[in-house]
């Protein structure tokens, strides 16, 4: 029962915001993240030109996503790490696990700055 009520509220929220506005927001966050992460030495952003995405995946030389994830977790940042339930595909395309940050309507540019800073720290610490 609660799930149905929640879903209805979510649908109403999205209608009120407007899909275009939500897309614009998360795409801008993504662009901000891509630019910041790509500038970190040793970090390779995957599919940087996927402008319609609301997430960014990256790999870092000598820094395993599991370890990056734990260091980001300690800074209050939740990312997904590993093969994202798609190991055969990732092994073909990337040859390994990745770190992935996704953006939603409630995320802010300040949070993206924190993400970039934390990844820069993690990559340096793990080198």
């Amino acid at each position: 029962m609660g799930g149905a009520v929640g879903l209805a509220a979510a649908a109403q929220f999205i209608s009120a915001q407007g899909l275009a506005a939500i897309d614009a927001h998360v795409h801008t966050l993504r662009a901000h993240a891509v630019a910041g992460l790509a500038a970190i030495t040793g970090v390779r952003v995957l599919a940087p030109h996927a402008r319609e995405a609301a997430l960014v995946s990256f790999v870092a030389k000598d820094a395993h996503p599991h370890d990056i994830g734990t260091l980001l977790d300690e800074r209050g940042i939740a990312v997904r790490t590993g093969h994202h339930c798609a190991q055969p595909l990732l092994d073909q395309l990337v040859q390994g696990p990745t770190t992935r940050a996704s953006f939603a309507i409630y995320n802010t540019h300040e949070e993206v700055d924190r993400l970039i800073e934390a990844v820069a720290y993690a990559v340096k610490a793990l080198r």
Partner: protein
Amino acid sequence: MELELDGEQIKDIAFSGQACAICMASSSMMTEAIKGKDLQLAKNLQAHFRAVLTGETDPDDVDIGKLVALSAVRRYPSRIKCALLGWHALMHAITGQDGAATTETTQAGA
């Protein structure tokens, strides 16, 4: 994971591969802990270490030697498998099974 057995004794052990820092450290510590020891000790150590990491046993209640340095991993549930992967491969090697070990269960779903 490669093992050289002399009867019940682990004459030599080595692992190769790339993984996260916890997995590499745990696997390395594992090889140090059991090289030259017998299979039963290795099995006991695996059982105790696993119990500590899954929270079944308190690290104060069991002797796992230097492996106690990794006991804090139990506070990071998503990293427990990292610390246990090498041991899982070791158990697979000890029971003499061919090919790759799997951590998948037989149940459907995630």
